[in-house]
């Protein structure tokens, strides 16, 4: 029997589509150049990645999110030349080696094309020859410089442009900073240029334009392009010839505080300077009186945003991608449906509870701790634990935001009382870059450096140069968590939270997770962070819910709040009874080193102390097993070694300078499960699932569900899509291999001295990832889930436009309902039987290791769903 839940929701969708259509018409038909509008749109399409010190995952194609997924990606592909799915050949190989299952493929074709079309389309998918090469539209107009004028403008302009930009934005690499950097970009250039001796330009004309002339973009474009109809396309071509640099300029323009040493720069300024450099180059090569670009372009190229025709090949890709995704989803849904029916009730008396971040890297640790201590209970919630604030480290000059990126907190928490001096690394001294002090330091430090390389190769250990997750805060320091009155403010922020504010946050958090009774004597609040050496992308491994930082402060703050007697009084009045014996303990899990540190242990009461020690032992064992599970993907570690040796090897990786893969970050993330732990307990999901605790029984109407679901699209969906796009096109949407990366100005990486910035993820982070979209599975009644996601348009967009899949598990009969085109319809998994896993150790020791990081080899490393006994 097929049930359908549906609300009248189509209106949202239609409005959005209509909106888009009109926008497209305008940009195609309006001939006049509207600078403000064009720049606004251009910024929208540029990569949104800001300074790399706070790596915030986001959908790489965020500009297209108002479109359906497939429509959007093919459009982006045609316009900008991105590869947006795996290659056809790769899909076919995946099918041949069984990774895409035949029944699923047939089902996907049947659903989309009808039962009669299966054979036809299957033949097309498997064997029809297609021309898969893609000629993008971007760059076609500017290509005329080379073909018609015989000049490679980019090659002549870009090196200097990048150099000047990088020097201006530089945060602290150069010893001699941009002398006029406290001004805006163009004023700074003007101040520099008016020195009378030297110039960035080769010709007087460009210099005079900058210093005294009319620097309106349209005026400059008139000189360079000529025909107003092509201004817009020219600017797109120009800015997308170095989308990395344009992207960071645009990001810094929108959020200057992304840089510690703030800069006043805008995309407008960048364009003006670039156009001036182009004018300069053209003037230099062609002398006075050169003609603009359009003078020699007789056949204008296709308009960038003209409609993209749909092709059969696109449909083929669509079917393959769906089949690839459902080959895994089907297993998972079958596993959940089957497993959930047979699972026993958890014991009532808990030994301890531990709240982890929803991060999929904690998925395995939770499984292990549950196996080591079957009486414990683990929960998951976004790793800022519902407390949003800025953090000011002791002696620190800058506040760090510790909550999801879109949230703007009103609170400040300060660290004090530890008085620990930050250690320096002798070899990182800047003297080595100067002449005479450099000479002295080479004669002394030079030989120390030799010894250092030797030591780090054979005895890696933590040093101040390594990003240490535990150093984010000092555990011996005190925090200003409790607000002292209305005047207790700094920088326009309230210092600490009032008791009432604390209670609200604790209550929301506990209710969201469904943890409102049966408290164990100790509740651990475990944030996570990641230590790694020699890794500019280190913050991409930290907690996404804490703006790419370790969540240790949040864990400690939340534990403080939940232990606060007055907070508990308020909670008591609201019906959450936390027993007097129960204590909350903050902690931090280092996901690279596999270590856990606990905070404020001295506050534990005497009777809880021995329990804590017992729990710590259990955690240690779980960490050993977790290390072993992770080690199967690391070539340098033999999984058959003694488990303690594996643990040591894992720890060494996190402090080894030569290790480009200290951990694998969010690689392989595919699922997000919102529900009780029982739904997935005992399922082996191979660290692929974000796990968010939620108990529908405490929230039958779904009042709390929206709050739980709201961050999932932007956080988990963002992570998933960034991995997806970095995986399918690591050249254009990812950062390429890490090995040649050169740190630029402390805000980004480029491949070489003269290269474009490389936003996105490096190949070392994505090679284990199967590029599939996120599937969110919610344990609740389908109609409640539908109502919830429809209540906020920004949230609904993720699902209705298919950027993220969503399914509901009926909490009573455990049936699966899949959301498609606005309705939840029942999904009957094809898979009838999920294999039980052998022994955990055997599973890990016998798992295959990829031979190459090509998708067809790499995906073999990802294990199927097992039921653990």
């Amino acid at each position, binding site marked *: 029997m097929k049930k359908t839940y549906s609300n009248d929701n189509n209106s949202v969708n239609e409005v959005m589509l209509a909106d888009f259509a009109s926008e497209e018409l305008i940009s195609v038909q309006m001939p006049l150049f509207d600078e403000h509008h064009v720049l606004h749109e251009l910024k929208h399409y540029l990569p949104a990645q800001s300074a790399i*010190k706070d790596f915030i995952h986001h959908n790489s194609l965020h500009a297209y999110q108002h479109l359906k997924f497939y429509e959007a990606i093919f459009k982006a592909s045609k316009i900008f030349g991105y590869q947006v799915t795996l*290659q056809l050949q790769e899909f076919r190989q995946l099918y041949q080696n069984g990774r895409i299952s035949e029944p699923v493929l047939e089902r996907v074709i049947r659903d989309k094309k009808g039962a009669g079309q299966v054979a036809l389309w299957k033949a097309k998918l498997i064997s029809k020859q297609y021309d898969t*090469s893609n000629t993008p539209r971007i760059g076609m107009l500017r290509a005329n410089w080379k073909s018609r004028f015989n000049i490679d403008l*980019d090659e002549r302009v*870009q090196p200097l442009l990048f*150099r000047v930009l990088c020097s201006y934005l530089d*945060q*602290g*690499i*150069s*010893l*001699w*900073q941009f002398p*006029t950097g*406290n001004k805006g970009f163009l004023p700074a250039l003007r101040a520099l240029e*008016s020195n*009378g*001796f*030297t110039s*960035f330009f080769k010709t007087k004309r460009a210099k005079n334009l900058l210093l005294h002339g009319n620097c309106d973009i349209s005026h400059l474009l008139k000189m360079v392009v000529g025909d107003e109809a092509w201004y817009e396309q020219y600017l797109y071509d120009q800015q997308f010839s170095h*989308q*990395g640099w344009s992207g960071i300029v645009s990001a810094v323009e929108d959020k200057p505080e992304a840089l510690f040493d703030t800069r006043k720069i805008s995309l407008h300024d960048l364009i003006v300077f670039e156009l001036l450099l182009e004018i300069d180059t053209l003037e230099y090569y062609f002398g006075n009186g050169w003609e603009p670009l359009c003078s020699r372009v007789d056949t204008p190229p296709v308009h960038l945003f003209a409609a993209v025709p749909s092709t059969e090949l696109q449909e083929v890709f669509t079917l393959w991608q769906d089949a690839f995704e459902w080959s895994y989803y089907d297993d998972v849904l079958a596993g959940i449906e089957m497993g959930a029916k047979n699972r026993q009730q958890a014991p009532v008396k808990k030994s301890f509870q531990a709240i982890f971040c929803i991060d999929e890297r904690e998925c395995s640790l939770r499984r292990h701790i549950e196996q080591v201590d079957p009486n414990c209970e683990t929960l998951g919630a976004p790793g800022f634990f519902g407390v949003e604030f800025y953090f000011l*480290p002791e002696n*620190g*000059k800058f506040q760090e935001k510790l909550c999801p990126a879109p949230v703007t907190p009103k609170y400040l928490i300060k660290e004090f009382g530890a008085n620990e001096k*930050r250690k320096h690394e002798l*070899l990182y001294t800047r003297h080595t*870059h*100067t*002449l005479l002090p*450099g000479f002295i330091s*080479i*004669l002394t*430090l*030079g*030989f120390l*450096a*030799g010894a250092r*390389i*030797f030591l780090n190769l054979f005895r890696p250990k933590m040093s101040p140069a390594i*990003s240490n997750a535990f150093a984010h805060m000092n555990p011996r320091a005190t925090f200003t968590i409790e607000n002292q009155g209305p005047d207790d403010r700094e920088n326009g922020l309230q210092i600490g939270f009032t008791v009432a504010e604390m209670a609200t946050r604790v209550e929301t958090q506990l209710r969201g997770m469904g943890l409102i009774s049966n408290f164990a004597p100790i509740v651990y609040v475990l944030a996570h962070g990641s230590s790694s050496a*020699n890794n500019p992308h280190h913050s991409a491994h930290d907690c996404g819910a804490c703006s790419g930082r370790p969540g240790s402060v949040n864990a400690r703050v939340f534990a403080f709040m939940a232990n606060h007697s007055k907070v508990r009084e308020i909670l008591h009045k609201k019906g959450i009874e936390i027993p007097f014996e129960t204590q909350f303990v903050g902690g931090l899990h280092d996901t690279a080193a596999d270590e856990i540190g606990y905070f404020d242990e001295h506050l534990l009461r005497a009777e809880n102390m021995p329990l804590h020690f017992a729990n710590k032992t259990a955690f240690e064992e779980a960490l050993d097993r977790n290390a072993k599970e992770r080690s199967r993907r690391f*070539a*340098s570690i033999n999984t058959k070694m003694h488990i303690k040796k594996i643990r040591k090897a894992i720890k060494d990786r996190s402090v080894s*300078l030569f*290790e*480009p893969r200290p951990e694998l970050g969010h690689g392989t993330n595919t699922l997000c499960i919102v529900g009780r732990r029982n739904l997935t307990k005992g399922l082996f999901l191979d660290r692929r699932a974000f796990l968010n605790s939620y108990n529908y029984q405490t929230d039958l109407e779904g009042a709390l569900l929206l709050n739980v679901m709201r961050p999932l699209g932007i956080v988990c969906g963002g992570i998933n899509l960034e991995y997806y796009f970095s995986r399918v096109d690591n050249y*254009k949407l990812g950062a390429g*291999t890490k*090995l*040649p990366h050169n*740190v630029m100005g*402390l805000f980004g*990486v*480029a*491949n*070489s001295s*003269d290269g*474009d910035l490389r936003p996105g993820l490096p190949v070392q982070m994505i090679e284990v990832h199967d590029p599939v979209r996120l599937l969110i599975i919610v344990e609740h009644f389908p109609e409640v889930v539908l109502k919830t996601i429809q209540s906020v348009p920004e949230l609904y967009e993720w699902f209705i436009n298919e950027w993220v899949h969503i399914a509901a598990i009926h909490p009573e009969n455990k049936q699966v309902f899949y959301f498609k085109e606005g309705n939840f319809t029942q999904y009957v998994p094809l898979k009838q039987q999920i294999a039980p896993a052998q022994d955990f150790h055997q599973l890990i020791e016998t798992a295959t290791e990829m031979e*190459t990081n090509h998708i067809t080899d790499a995906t073999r490393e990802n294990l199927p769903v097992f039921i653990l006994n």
Partner: protein
Amino acid sequence: MSHLLQFFILIPSVGFLISLFLPRKKEAILSGVTLGTVGIQLVGIVLFIAWWLMNGFPTLDIKQIVLYKSPEFEFFIDFYFDKITAVFAFVGAVLTFLVAVFSRYYMHREDGFKRYFCALLLFYVGYNLIVFAGNFETLFSGWEILGITSFLLIAFYRDRYLPVKNGFKVLSFYRLGDICLILAMWMSHHLWHRNITFAEWGEMAAVQELFQQHYAPAMFITVAILIAAIIKSAQLPFSTWLPRAMEGPTTSSAIFYGSLSVHIGVFLLLRTYPFWGHEWIIKTIILATGLATSLVATGIARVQSSVKTQIAYASIAQIGLMFIEVALGFHVLALIHFAGNAFLRTYQLLVSPSVLNYLVHDMVFHFKPRPANEPNPRLQKIKHALYILSIKEFNFDFLLHRYFWSPFKWIGNRMAFFNSRWGFVFWMLVLVSGVTGFLLRENLGVNLFNALPILFAVLSLVMVLKGFSERGDARRAWIMAFSSQFMTAIAILLNKDIKWLEVALYLGGSMSAAIVGYLCLRKIKSIEGDISLEHYHGHIYEQRGLALVFLLSCLGLSGFPITPTFIGIDLMFTHVHKGQIFMALMMALNFLFLELTLLRIYARIFMGQHKKAYHPIAFKSS
């Protein structure tokens, strides 16, 4: 004792040869062979140095193998060992070993894992050839190996545009250094009438006397050596290649441009010091170059906002100081300075990615807002001017391009006429008249006969330049390049009595390479249709094997030490008279542009962004 020296070349050579035949995917074996090779070498060098020290550190020299011998010419490999060799060999072995261990993990799963380790071993062969060399010929063969491995490792990410472009740029600088050495070798043949060994320079008085007697040729040799050293060590005005060489994996940048390769110029100066050490003009030039470089490079280093270029310029500045030390005779200090700089820069490059975390963290606690502007407006103007100049690297790149490379391209571009049918007829006529001239040499007037070789050398250079600036069919450029070698042979035939065997030696190697290379181009043309040199094609993505064969033929044709042409080039030069500096210069330029023409063809046809866009392709600017 001295006969042990050959093993320090043999060990890495064997390692390199083994590595060539290992399967691409066996990472453990590939890195194991490399580690084993360099490890054995390291232990060997340490033991050897200990033994050598116990024996009172004598200067060792051995004439190893004679490769070619005629009454007036002898080409032999000679090894040499003194304290300079000891320091360079030791530091080289330690750093190569450390970098090999580092790379073993770092390069894991990288596309081109094998390529990397093979190139590293070949580099190490070249490095040892240089530091153990006992004569110019041996040194030069190592020098060429270093150049080509540099190109291969800078262009390691060959599917992107910038590494290929910059690899080629560095190659063109290196090749300029090569021809300086060729010229130095040529003149020294005439000075001594044989191939001199470095050991013979030990007799200071005799060398000094010779220098004074033949002042002009001796100065010519010294200046050529000096330019070669300046280029290889990135001193002014040739500094700009070093920051652009940081394109390969961080580890290869560290060992090449952080430590070993870049100090070879210093090595060359130390090695040749006995020859010119008494000549104050040369010392002054070196002092001035070193001083100017250290000051300018320090300025440029101060404004660098990316980690690797900062290290590059800081290192250049220190090498400038080393030049000063060498000129002043503080050689022990220079050696210590070299070792310290090599270790430090290797370390800094290897940990360069961690600078982000370290300095950002440092900012959190120690950030100071920028100071107010310079109060003195005039001083401020000067500072601003200097800042702009430093950002633009004092315009050296631009100036070199404009005043050195562009004129040659301009000449090549003017030769479009030769693309036509008449052009072909013209070349045929020239060839025929050349051969006729040679046959009738008895009957020609003396003046005419003396002018002919120079005329042919010039024509030969023009042909190469035509190939070098070719934008159309790659085969045309290839034929031009090869024909010019015929032309050179004719020029030499006309110049002096020369044995046919010697001409055969010279043309034999290049002829077979030329044929193989031409067949490769024909094959790729038949597969892909378009092989114009206007764009990069990136065909290595599909045609890996063909690309390798073609690369080998490029190297063979350009006189890389894999064919007899390598000896042949040296031989050709011995037949240019001492007084024919112009002719020697023409031929040297010919060899410079010959290699550039050939590798340009290789780069454009096989490297760069792949033309067929059915798979992800990098942006040109990345």
